[in-house]
């Protein structure tokens, strides 16, 4: 399908100058446009959600710049290199997680950060990328659908870091890391029978788990089923965000005019609950627009993963695309009250740099795996 011209990197004549730059940087135009639209939308609403706090807004822009550099940089890496580096990255991530666990037991309380003096970062974030890459690396040369033994190996690759992260304790990230790995298995063609078995096993665990849960954990679950149970605690978030969304109506109260958000009835309005600010200020139209953009990003990413050149590329891209969906669905579901309150940010919109960098890095890898054309065409 590819011409010799592209292999050498020479621009096609019929492409515009911009498109050719995008191509030469191994980026994908439509995906870039969709991500750009989400980000602009996000910055627009963030200004209002931070209460017109220009300082916060600018620091978000700065982090965004960093994230874009990471994305473009990663897109330049050759796919073969990424694949071969996967076990190394995974190994480093694992070592860092263990270091955090040891260091964390020395200080008290939750320890997720590794202080590198210059900057601090969470090794668990690396794992969001490294776990699916490692799973895909493992399956790359093996016949698919995976054999039982391969499934066992993959589960081990997923569970070790997931358990370490859950122990930090950071259940939200552990679930995201776990789901990214499971999604690789799913995409690798795990048989429907085993999927059914897994779901049945999970369902049977629920009553057992309930029995072993602490009272406060049970309380969390009951609270989700009936937010009025705990109106001062986590239920407060749920009640206030539904009031914010519901009162926004079809067109919203107008940018910077959401009383729930601006009078700070809505907690965490600039971070996890920013979707409710969109609902209150720009209404159903704004929220639907954003979800539409998300769907676009997901669709384009899934399309690109289908076009990836090898098993590794397909699996990694597919997992990244679906992880992005998990972010979007869990956050919007939680804010609108159909899912329990868990700490997952609205992708590329919520205030805060960590998730932003990880997400754009995953898109950088996704574009690398597609933007470099293979040497032997089919």
């Amino acid at each position, binding site marked *: 399908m590819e011409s010799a011209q592209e292999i050498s990197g020479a621009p096609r004549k019929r492409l515009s100058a911009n498109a050719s730059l995008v191509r030469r940087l191994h980026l994908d135009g439509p995906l870039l446009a969709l991500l750009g639209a989400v980000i602009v939308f996000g910055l627009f609403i963030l200004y209002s959600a931070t209460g017109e706090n220009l300082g916060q807004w600018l620091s978000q822009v700065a982090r965004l710049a960093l994230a874009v550099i990471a994305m473009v940089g990663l897109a330049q890496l050759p796919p073969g290199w990424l694949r071969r580096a996967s076990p190394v990255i995974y190994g480093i991530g694992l070592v860092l997680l263990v270091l955090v666990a040891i260091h964390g037991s020395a200080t008290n309380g939750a320890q997720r950060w590794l202080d590198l003096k210059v900057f601090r970062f969470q090794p668990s974030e690396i794992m969001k990328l490294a776990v699916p890459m490692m799973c895909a690396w493992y399956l790359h040369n093996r*016949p698919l659908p995976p054999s039982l033994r391969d499934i066992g190996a993959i589960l081990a690759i997923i569970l070790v870091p997931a358990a370490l992260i859950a122990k930090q304790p950071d259940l939200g990230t552990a679930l995201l890391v776990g789901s990214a790995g499971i999604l690789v298995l799913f*995409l690798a063609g795990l048989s429907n029978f085993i999927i059914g078995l897994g779901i049945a096993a999970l369902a049977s665990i629920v009553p057992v788990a309930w029995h072993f849960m602490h009272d406060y954990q049970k309380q969390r679950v009951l609270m989700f089923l009936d937010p009025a149970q705990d*109106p001062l605690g986590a239920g407060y978030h749920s009640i206030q965000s539904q*009031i914010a969304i*519901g009162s926004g109506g*079809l067109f919203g109260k107008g940018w910077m005019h959401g009383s729930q958000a601006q*009078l700070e009835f809505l907690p965490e309005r600039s971070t996890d609950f920013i979707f409710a600010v969109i609902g209150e200020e720009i209404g159903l139209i704004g929220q*639907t627009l954003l979800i539409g953009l998300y769907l676009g990003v997901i669709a384009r990413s*899934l399309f690109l993963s289908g076009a990836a050149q090898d*098993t590794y590329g397909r699996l990694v891209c597919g997992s990244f695309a679906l992880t992005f969906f998990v972010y979007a669905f869990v956050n919007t579901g939680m804010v609108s009250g159909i899912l329990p309150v868990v700490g997952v940010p609205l992708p590329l919109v919520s205030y805060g740099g960590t998730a932003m960098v990880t997400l754009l890095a995953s898109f950088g890898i996704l574009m690398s795996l597609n933007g470099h054309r293979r040497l032997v065409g089919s």
Partner: protein
Amino acid sequence: MFGSARIKDHHGEQRLFAGRIVFAGVAAAILLLLVISRLFFLQVIKHSYFADLSQGNRVRLEPLPPDRGLIYDSQGTVIAENTPAYQLELVPEQVPDVVDTLSRLADLHLIDRESVPGLTRLIKTGRRFQAVPLRLSLSENDIAMFSVRQHDFPGVEIRTRLARWYPFGGQGVHALGYVATISEDDLKRIDRDQYSGSALIGKIGLESTYEQELHGLSGYRQVLVNAQGRRVDKLGGTPVHLETRKPTAGNDIFLGIDMRLQHIAEEGLAGKRGAVVAIDPNTGNVLTFASVPTFDPNKFTRGISNADYAALRDDVDRPLFNRALRGTYPPGSTVKPMMALAGLEYGVVDPNAVRNCTGGFTLPGSSHVYHDWKRSGHGPVDMKRAIATSCDIYFYGLAEVLGIDRVHDAMSGLGFGRLSGIDVGGEKPGIMPSTAWKMATYKQQWYPGETVIVGIGQGYLTATPLQLAHAAAILAARGRNWRPRLVTSVRDATTQEIRKLPPIEEPVIQLRDTSLWDTVIEGMEMVARPGGTASSSFAGVPYRVAAKTGTAQVFSLGQNQKYNAASLAERLRDHALFIAFAPADNPKIAIAVLVENGGHGGLAAAPIARRIFDAYLLGKFENAPKPLAPPADAPIEDLDEVH
């Protein structure tokens, strides 16, 4: 089907992958459509309902703090209660500029200027919609002054809340502790939801140990507020169901302490520094727990000013220091009965053997002379006489024969060097030295001379007044060991049922012969009789008393120097100590008295014990303490809470 038998089927894999991708894409689209339909439900179908909730008038949740449990003494007298007080509060979300508001309140002297940085941090870490108490008690002048300026302070208001009141002021404060404003540090360890309406939390003493019992469960009430955050009664036309959940009051606790005994103890120590702990040897119930000087906990519950706090903190007499629980003192001669017991148990001494006390003792191969407190010596003494006259020479020799490690083992059984496990935090274990202890602490071997002075309760050995009282109680109960405790029962706030807490028994001390106890106790009885070191304080006593005096050196004397109380600065004088229990034949109360720099134990400490024994055993209460009336605060009907 399995493993190496299979080869990669690239086209098959791609087909499979494409199928999964399509499936996942469709599933993602369906789930996101589900979210959109939920949004449609909220924003279109239920729009008017939510719009009413949010527009103009809103529902705000107001936490309702529970009533804190009361604390009673053993006679049913309330010693910690709740009284209404006018409180200045700030709701962060309604205040345009917190720093400016606080600074202007400080200008009006409504809050302490030095407390502004702390309050600012507290407001920033708390929840935006929850009121933060700025000052816990306002005078009528303050209220008048603030009322006329209220319009300058949006988000700041005066509310009537229940405040803690200790009707006996400083009496028993070192057992009770106090409550005070919830600090930033407290916020990190408590369940914020449960404390959302509470201004106060137990900081120290029982108020802190029993915080869980006393605090209760928060309730809440939904109130309608307008855009300015003011409460309104009606919501434009739409009926709104306003919910209220009443708070559950905290449980009441009952102490073993009798405030009348407590009063006698503190009165006896008035003007001095010291401690008195009395324990029921049959249950471990603490009957008196005094540490003097005391301080007024009511200052803390109503927001102590920085100046007042600094004065307490920097007072040379250290009123904030809990001497009974945390003061470690050389026990002096009060350990002699325990030393005698150790000698008997290990069989190194015959109680009837007479030793001639010449007033001096030297270790073999040493020229250092250990003097008796009585330079001329006591003459021939057997064990009981040695206890009665507090002969040092006898116990120098006994300690030397026993050796420090056997002394350590025996005394540890009586609670020395260990936490008693009393139900109030911060207890100190003191030091019960041994060869291993010295090696671990100083990396040095143990010298025989150090054993000699441990024999009379000096040297490395230290103990708290609580430990001494506990040891006396174990002696009184002839080896039965009840863990000391302040709280004896808890009354459930909802059922009003009184739950008695069973006393906790520690392992019994088994001696090879129970008559060994009797020998030591007979010696202790001789202490209170004519010829004994405490006889002057127990003249004509109608019940049998077993006792031991102690005089502990603070200041070491050189060889051949004589102790002269008059020439020494007051703070270098000896500590006076006294342990006792009564009646000796059927013990009901065991006591330890310490008077810092009080001089002789028989003269300075024993009389306090005598008064407490007379009161407890004979019912002689001459002047019972009177509860103080709470400051003229708000009338109870004004309370801004649901009851």
